Structure formats: structure tokens, C-alpha cells
């Protein structure tokens, strides 16, 4: 019955929608036929032709309304009239291109900023992995310290895989950097992944060409020299030649055979990376010759493997967790370094893993709030523009109301116009956002490995923008539309040709401008706080400008295979020679080397025995050469620096520890001169000095217990070092000489960049810098929008009040009085805005810093400098915005105005 019903009416509806004109013509013809019949009938009663026609029309009882009723019966009049509204709106917007452009630009800035930040949030935090049924994936983790970590030993992976009953299968992977050479030609180092045999089947990903790494490639250590390449690498290096399958390539010097290509867009489970080469985990010792053999019995525990799996159907994650917890302990070997307090965790892996997420989710959420406020300001801005225009359009609206348009219909018409503006703003916004988010990403990527994120607008992003635009359109459109259609017809029509017209409306305008001022002041204060916080972080200084310290990685050939016999001694010789050479360069004050860059957290650690209790504590160790502390300006609290004698092979092992390590290992004692024993390898050190915690390795005030050891005494496969050089004068003059000295030790070593410590710190403070820079940028945008809004309101007020001003001047007011009168109004609005904005900013920042630890460094959320500067900037900008209309008001010629009145 229902279906039959629709089979009748659907063609009718479609016809009236798409054959609109024909249907309208038929309606006219039908009515006309009726009218003629009626006229004939009336004539037959003896009426004249003219009277008969009148009578016929009267009988129709309102022809237009009747036709409209027929249209409504068609049930699509809403669609039709909306299309009418759109056509009309296009005409209206087209007629005032200046207004349209300003409004669309305001909106494009607001919507674009929101889309840009959202597309980053989407890429980093929301998007699911391009694999089969990503929602079923779980990643195993373990809480060893404060956070859930996703690393396990090879032993654990193997035991889990063999003994668990909870997962369909488990797969392991680990990132690796690879130097690739094809046909004897060395490529720039690429990102790679070592994966277990079940990796691709667990993820449900097939090879685009060739085959994936499978169980047959995961049997014998070092026995499976096969590799998959990414679609990107295939295109870049082999021009998508199917003949690439079966080719031999060298990975870190070892021959591998290409067996397949991964599908486009596939990157594994690490969001933000773009691996180009996949090899079997069995090849770890081959592709990581610098590291230990993690498959066998490593000296140091290394949690290198990520483990993902799919739960068996119907199994609850809690049950799986309980089982893994048992297996974690039952099959642990001493090398797994399982601690009693360790706890296994199981996290959904549908959106992959990402270091970026941890690092940038808070900054992105802060920025999202900031751009949300910018959009709100843009809304208020456009709303006040619309309001001013509605006043100008009052006579048009009054006429339409008078000839019978319903208020609802007019409100709808005006809302359609706002939505069209919003759509225009949204479209421009998407373009802005695409460009903006790429720029943002490259800004974040500066000074680190490139972040590979696809920022192409996907349905989520487009949906977000569409929703934001629609909400925006209604938000800024509804109040002016309601206001504009609430009219007293009489006065409006009467004053049609008088300048100004009705004086209603400024109240709402004031509110909107006050809102803009308050919100942009909030943004300015927030930006000021972030900038000051960054300055404080930057300002913890060592007593010399950071530009005067040069930092450069040094990686002579073989330095990544320090564990091979003789390599350490050879490297030590190279490094000592290099230091001598560098110290001889004119302009060099001090030079030394250390295992890591000054701002990098030290991740290598040794187990050190706490002498008072015998407890084993983890202390991070870092290889250095003499002079390191004076080069970086790290002061000694007790004892002395290394000398050349401490580096002699026969010397007694010496260590310098920092105050955090001293507190941990020797609580309440003077550590200098004490002895300290390490485990694995077991060695007795003498603590020769205690230094203050470095400003640079703990920029945000976290502390790390550090032991500085002579290069030869650090037990690691990594022999690459970082050269630190303090210079006098211009870095530009000395840096090339340093670079040349480094090159001379090994002609084939990769040429690495010389950076200043200032650049290093900048890179390390990326998060803070991104927030400070972007919030300042958006603060400036907000300020500009508010100033434009203020200027618009005052300029409009001056035009509206020109009659009054003319009269005032005619009866003796001076230009100065008029100037001051307008300026006073402006400052009153701004004053109210400031009075609202400051407390809002205070409360907001207090709330935010209580939620996010370390949001502000070294200052309170009520920092008077940030607030003061923001208020002054706001007031000055407002004064300029008010001065221009005020000056125009003061120039009003009373004669001209009075004549017009």
C-alpha cells in the first residue's frame, strides 16, 4: 500500500521539482481556463465583459494566494522557495562586492584557521590506520615508569606469540634507519621497519606487487635477506617498474632482494612516519650493525619491539590482559629486566601509535581553542557588518513586509544570505587551511626528521568545515536577521528617503563589538603568557650567548659499529685529534665532545649500585671528553673536570655525575671522591666531580640523573659523537672552519650541519614555540578583526549621527569637542571589553594550567606583564580605530548637514 502510494506521487514530486517551469505553466493554464469559463458564465448572467472579469477574479478570492496553495500542495515549496532565496541572495551579495569580500575574508580566516588545526588533529589523533578492520587491533604495552610504553624484548615477543590463547596472531615491528644503495648508487638514508613474519597478515595488508614478508621470512637469524619497498620508493627509484621485484639492493652494505611493494598510503602503525623499506626482524643484526644482536643474548636490555595483534572473536580485552600479565612474568628471562611493579597494558591500535600524538595533542587542543575564539570573533565581526547593512536595507525589508511577506520568510531569506556568506568563507577557508596546515607541518618539522602526514582534506575534514561553516552562518546571521525584520512599518517607510532612518540597532552592535574586544583581549593575554613563558624557558642562560656555541654531529665511518674489536680505540684517536685541531682554530674558546646533543634526553643507561643500600638504580650515562662542562657553561658543585690523564687507558675509571644523580645515589652526602659500581658491565668508578643539572637537557625543569663518563668507558655500540665548540665572535666565520676540520678526519663521512646552541634549543622548545608563535599570530588576527569591527561601528555611528553633530557644531561645539565625543564612545566600549576580557582570560588560563602541567614555565597565569601589554596594545589599537571616524565627525560641515535635514 505504502509503496503503491509512492509510485503515484514520486514521479509527480520529481516533475514539479525538475520541470518547474512546465508545471507552473500548466497551473496558469488550468486557472486561466477556469477563469474564462467563469467569465462566460457571468456574461451569460448579463454582466459586461469587464465586470464579468472582475467577478471571476473575485470568485477566485486571491489568485496569487490560491496558486501558492497549489504549489504548497506539491510539497516541495520549501525547496523551491529556498532556491529562490539563493538566487535572490546571490543578487544581493553580488550587488555589494565590498561587503561580501570583507565578510567572506573574516570568515575565511576564522574557518580556515579552524580547518587547518582540525586537519592536523585529524591526521595525528583521529584518523584510523589504512589496514583491515583497524578497530580490532590491539597494541601491547607495559608500564615500567609513569607511562605505558610499547616496547618489548625479542624473548617476550616470541614467548607471547607461542603461548598466548587470546590473540589470533601477534606481530612485532621496530623502526630502523637504513642506508640504501641501488646499482651501486647510495641513496639518502630512509626510514625502514623491521617486521615479524605475521606482520602483514595481522594487519590484513597485501602487497601491491610481488609478495609480503611472511612466516617463511622469519625463521633463521640473519637468514632472510629479503625486503619490501614502499609504493613511494618504488615510484621514486624504480619508476613503478614491475621488474623491481627480484632486484638486488644493498641495505647498510648487505645484499637484499626486493620481494614486493606495499600499497600506497600504507605506513605501518606509526602515525607520522613513512617507512620506505621493510625487512624481517630476523635481519636486525644485519641492518643494525652498530647495535647489539637483539635476537641473541644482548648485554643490555633493549625494548625494541612493538607488538600488535587481533583479539580472538568474543574475547574481552580484560581476559587477554590477564593472560598476558601472567605470560609476561612466567616466560621472562633475566635479560628482560622484569620488575615487580611492571604492569602490562593493552591499548586499542585502530588509530596507530604516534610519538606526535603524545607531543602535540595538548598544543593542538590549545590551538583549537584559540582558533575557536578567533572564529567567534569573526562571527561577531560579520554579525555587526550585517547589522549595519540591515539598517541600510531597512526600507527594502519594510516594503517586502508591507506587501505581505511573512516575517519568518524574511528571516529565512536573510539566513540563507548568511549561510551563503558562510559557505563562501568556508570554501576560501579550506584553501587557506590546506596551505596553512602544510606550512604548520613544515614549521613543526623544522630541526627534526620530517613528519610524514597526509593532510589532503578527507571526508572528516570537509565535514568538519561544512559543519563549522553552517553553524557559523546561523550564529552570525540569526541576531541581525531577527533584528532587521522587527520593524515598525510606518516610520521605516516614511523615513525611506531620509538619511539615517530608524535609530534602533546600535545596542546589539555595541554588544557585538564589546564581545570582539573582550575575546581578542583574551587571545592577546594568552599569547602574551605563552610568549613570556617561552622567553623564560629560553632565558635560563649559562652566562654566554647561545649563538656562541656551535654544535655538530660527528659520524666517522665505523662509528656505528663501536663494538667491533679495535674500533673504539681508533675512534678515540680520531676524536682526540679532531679536538686538538678544532681548539687550534682562531676564535675557538673551548671545544669538547659528548655522546648526544645538549638538548637531547640521554636514553642510554647503566645500572648503578647505591652504595648505602646496595640497591640498583638506573642512571643515564653519556660519553664526554674533557672540557665539556666549561664549553657548555655547566658549573661544578664539587670536585673537578676530567683531565687528559683520566682518559689514559691505564687510568682509574672516573665519572662526573650531576646533582640529580648525586641526590639519588648519595643522598645527604658529598659525592665527590666517592666510589660507584656499575653492573653489566661491572666496573668501579671514582666520582671525581659533581656538576649542576644542565639547563639544556632539562629545558622544562625535569631532571635526569646523569653520569658523564670518558668515551672509552661507555658500554654502547654507538660511537657517534657531537662536537661542542664555544667561540668568540661571529659563528658564520668559525662554523666553516669547524666543518672543514671534521671533514678532514674522514672524507667519506656524511657532511652534517653545524648549528648553534640557540638553534638546538629552538628545536627542543618546538612545542612551546609553536604555541607561542601561533597564538601570537591568531591574537594579531583577532585584534585586527576587533579593530575593523570597532572602526565599522564608529564610522557607521558617525554617519548616522551626522545631523546631530552638525547641530551641535552649529550651536557652538568645537571640533575638539566632537572629536572627543566620538573617541569617548569608542573608549567606553573598549573599556567595557577590557573589563570583561581580563577576568575571563585569568579564569581560562588558571583552568587550563591546572589541567595541563607545564603549560606555563616560570610565571603565573596572572602575569601582570602579559596582561598589561595586552591591555595597552588593545587600547592603542582601539584609539586608532576610534580616531579615524572621530576625525571625520569633527570635519562635518554644519551647513551641509543642516541643509540636508
Amino acid at each position: 500500500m505504502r509503496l503503491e502510494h509512492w509510485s503515484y506521487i514520486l514521479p509527480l514530486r520529481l516533475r514539479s521539482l525538475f520541470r518547474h517551469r512546465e508545471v507552473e505553466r500548466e497551473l496558469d493554464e488550468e486557472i486561466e481556463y477556469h477563469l474564462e469559463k467563469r467569465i462566460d458564465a457571468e456574461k451569460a448572467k448579463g454582466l459586461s465583459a469587464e465586470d464579468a472579469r472582475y467577478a471571476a477574479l473575485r470568485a477566485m478570492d486571491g489568485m496569487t494566494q490560491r496558486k501558492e496553495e497549489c504549489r504548497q500542495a506539491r510539497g516541495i515549496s520549501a525547496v523551491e522557495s529556498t532556491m529562490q532565496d539563493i538566487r535572490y541572495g546571490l543578487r544581493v551579495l553580488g550587488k555589494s562586492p565590498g561587503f561580501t569580500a570583507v565578510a567572506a575574508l573574516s570568515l575565511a580566516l576564522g574557518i580556515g584557521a579552524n580547518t587547518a588545526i582540525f586537519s592536523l588533529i585529524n591526521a595525528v589523533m583521529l584518523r584510523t590506520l589504512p589496514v583491515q578492520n583497524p578497530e580490532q587491533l590491539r597494541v601491547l604495552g607495559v608500564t615500567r615508569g609513569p607511562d605505558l610504553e610499547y616496547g618489548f624484548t625479542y624473548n617476550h615477543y616470541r614467548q607471547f606469540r607461542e603461548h598466548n590463547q587470546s590473540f589470533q596472531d601477534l606481530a612485532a615491528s621496530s623502526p630502523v634507519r637504513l642506508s640504501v644503495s641501488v646499482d651501486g648508487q647510495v641513496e639518502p638514508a630512509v626510514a625502514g621497519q623491521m617486521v615479524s613474519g605475521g606482520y602483514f597478515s595481522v594487519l590484513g595488508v597485501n602487497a601491491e606487487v610481488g609478495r609480503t614478508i611472511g612466516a617463511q621470512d622469519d625463521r633463521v637469524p640473519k637468514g632472510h635477506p629479503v625486503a619490501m619497498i614502499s609504493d613511494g620508493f618504488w615510484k621514486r627509484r624504480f619508476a613503478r617498474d614491475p621488474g623491481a621485484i627480484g632486484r638486488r639492493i644493498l641495505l647498510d652494505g648487505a645484499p637484499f632482494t626486493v620481494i614486493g611493494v606495499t600499497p600506497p598510503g600504507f605506513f605501518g602503525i606509526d602515525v607520522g612516519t613513512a617507512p620506505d623499506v621493510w625487512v624481517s626482524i630476523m635481519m636486525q643484526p644485519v641492518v643494525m650493525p652498530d647495535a647489539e644482536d637483539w635476537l641473541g643474548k644482548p648485554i643490555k636490555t633493549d625494548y625494541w619491539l612493538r607488538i600488535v595483534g587481533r583479539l580472538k572473536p568474543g574475547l574481552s580485552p580484560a581476559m587477554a590482559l590477564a593472560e598476558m600479565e601472567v605470560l609476561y612474568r612466567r616466560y621472562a628471562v633475566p635479560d628482560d629486566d622484569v620488575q615487580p611493579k611492571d604492569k602490562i597494558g593493552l591499548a586499542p591500535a585502530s588509530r596507530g601509535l604516534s610519538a606526535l600524538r603524545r607531543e602535540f595533542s595538548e598544543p593542538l587542543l590549545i590551538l583549537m581553542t584559540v582558533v575557536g575564539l578567533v572564529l567567534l570573533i569573526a562571527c561577531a565581526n560579520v554579525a555587526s557588518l550585517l547589522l549595519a547593512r540591515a539598517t541600510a536595507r531597512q526600507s527594502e525589508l519594510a516594503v517586502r513586509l508591507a506587501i505581505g511577506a511573512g516575517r519568518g520568510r524574511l528571516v529565512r531569506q536573510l539566513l540563507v544570505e548568511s549561510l551563503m556568506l558562510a559557505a563562501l568563507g568556508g570554501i576560501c577557508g579550506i584553501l587557506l587551511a590546506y596551505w596553512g596546515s602544510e606550512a604548520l607541518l613544515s614549521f613543526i618539522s623544522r630541526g627534526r626528521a620530517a613528519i610524514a602526514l597526509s593532510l589532503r582534506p578527507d571526508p572528516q575534514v570537509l565535514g568538519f568545515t561544512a559543519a563549522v561553516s553552517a553553524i557559523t552562518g546561523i550564529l552570525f546571521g540569526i541576531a541581525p536577521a531577527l533584528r532587521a525584520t522587527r520593524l515598525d512599518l510606518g516610520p521605516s517607510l516614511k523615513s525611506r528617503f531620509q538619511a539615517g532612518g530608524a535609530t534602533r540597532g546600535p545596542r546589539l552592535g555595541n554588544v557585538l563589538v564589546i564581545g570582539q574586544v573582550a575575546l581578542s583581549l583574551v587571545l592577546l593575554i594568552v599569547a602574551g603568557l605563552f610568549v613570556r613563558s617561552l622567553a623564560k624557558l629560553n632565558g635560563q642562560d649559562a652566562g654566554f650567548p647561545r649563538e656562541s656555541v656551535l654544535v655538530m654531529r660527528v659520524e666517522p665511518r665505523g662509528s656505528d659499529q663501536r663494538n667491533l674489536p679495535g674500533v673504539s680505540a681508533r675512534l678515540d684517536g680520531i676524536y682526540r685529534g679532531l679536538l686538538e685541531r678544532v681548539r687550534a682554530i682562531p676564535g675557538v674558546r673551548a671545544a669538547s665532545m659528548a655522546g648526544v646533543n645538549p638538548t637531547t634526553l640521554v636514553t642510554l643507561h647503566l645500572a648503578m649500585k647505591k652504595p648505602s643500600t646496595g640497591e640498583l638504580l638506573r642512571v643515564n650515562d653519556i660519553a664526554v671528553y674533557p672540557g665539556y662542562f666549561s664549553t657548555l657553561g655547566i658549573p661544578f658543585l664539587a670536585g673537578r673536570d676530567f683531565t687528559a690523564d683520566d682518559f689514559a687507558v691505564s687510568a682509574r675509571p672516573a665519572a662526573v655525575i650531576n646533582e640529580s644523580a648525586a641526590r639519588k645515589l648519595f643522598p645527604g652526602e658529598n659525592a665527590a671522591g666517592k666510589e660507584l659500581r656499575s653492573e653489566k658491565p661491572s666496573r668501579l668508578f671514582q666520582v671525581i666531580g659533581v656538576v649542576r643539572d644542565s639547563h639544556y637537557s632539562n629545558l622544562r625543569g625535569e631532571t635526569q640523573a646523569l653520569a658523564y663518563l670518558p668515551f672509552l668507558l661507555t658500554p654502547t655500540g654507538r660511537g657517534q659523537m657531537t662536537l661542542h665548540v664555544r667561540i668568540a665572535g661571529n659563528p658564520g666565520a668559525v662554523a666553516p672552519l669547524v666543518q672543514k676540520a671534521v671533514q678532514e678526519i674522514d672524507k667519506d663521512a656524511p657532511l652534517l650541519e653545524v648549528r648553534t646552541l640557540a638553534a638546538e634549543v629552538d628545536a627542543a622548545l618546538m612545542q612551546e614555540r609553536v604555541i607561542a608563535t601561533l597564538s601570537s599570530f591568531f591574537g594579531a588576527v583577532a585584534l585586527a578583526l576587533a579593530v575593523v569591527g570597532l572602526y565599522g561601528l564608529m564610522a557607521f555611528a558617525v554617519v548616522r549621527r551626522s545631523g546631530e553633530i552638525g547641530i551641535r557644531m552649529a550651536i557652538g561645539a568645537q571640533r575638539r569637542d566632537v572629536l572627543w565625543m566620538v573617541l569617548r564612545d569608542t573608549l567606553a566600549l573598549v573599556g567595557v571589553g577590557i573589563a570583561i576580557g581580563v577576568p575571563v582570560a585569568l579564569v581560562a588560563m588558571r583552568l587550563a594550567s591546572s589541567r595541563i602541567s607545564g603549560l606555563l614555565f616560570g610565571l603565573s597565569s596572572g602575569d601582570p606583564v602579559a596582561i598589561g601589554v595586552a591591555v595597552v596594545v588593545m587600547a592603542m589599537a582601539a584609539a586608532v580605530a576610534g580616531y579615524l571616524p572621530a576625525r571625520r565627525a569633527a570635519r562635518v560641515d554644519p551647513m551641509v548637514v543642516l541643509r540636508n535635514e
Partner: protein
Amino acid sequence: MSKPSDLVQGTLDLLILKILALEPLNGWSIGERLRQVSSDVLHVSDGSLYPALHKLEQGGWIASEWKPSENNRRAKFYSLTKLGRSQLEKETADWTRLSRAISHVVKLKEA
């Protein structure tokens, strides 16, 4: 000319359906026929006829077709659909019940 309110609320649809059940007609003739068969009692106003027809057509109860009328003028003729016929039966039954009830009430003897 009678106003639409002169017709009992909702009966216009029923009347149109019934008239069209007899034979397909154009809008003008529907009004005329209704007047004739009701012996000049029932008048449908020109204004309310066409919205009602369009509503019935969109409801799927009547269908329309352009056909030549007298002296070869084209006119829109409406006819009852299958759906309309069952609707007519339903409305007729409703009407009969209602009118019987009303006449029963108005014929009650006053005490």
C-alpha cells in the same frame, strides 16, 4: 458564492472524489456538476477548488491528464485512481457514520 467554510469541514475532498468516481472531469466541470447533482445546494468556491484538487493529486488519489475539451481547448481532466477509490470508500463510510450520528442527535425529542 458560498465560502469554503459553508461546506462541512473536510467534505470537499469526499465530494470531489465522489464526483470523479462517476466520470473524469476538469476543474470547472467538477464545480458545475457538484452544483447540479446537489440541486444547487452545494457550492464550491473557485478559490478553494484548485488547491484541493492539487492536494488530492499529490496524495495519489486522483490523476490528471490534459485532454481537449469543447471547441478544442485543452483542459486538465482529473480521474480517480485505484488508491482514490479505496479512499473514497473509506471516507464515504466515515461520512455515513458521522451524518447518521448527527441526525440522530438533532432529532432527539426535547423534554
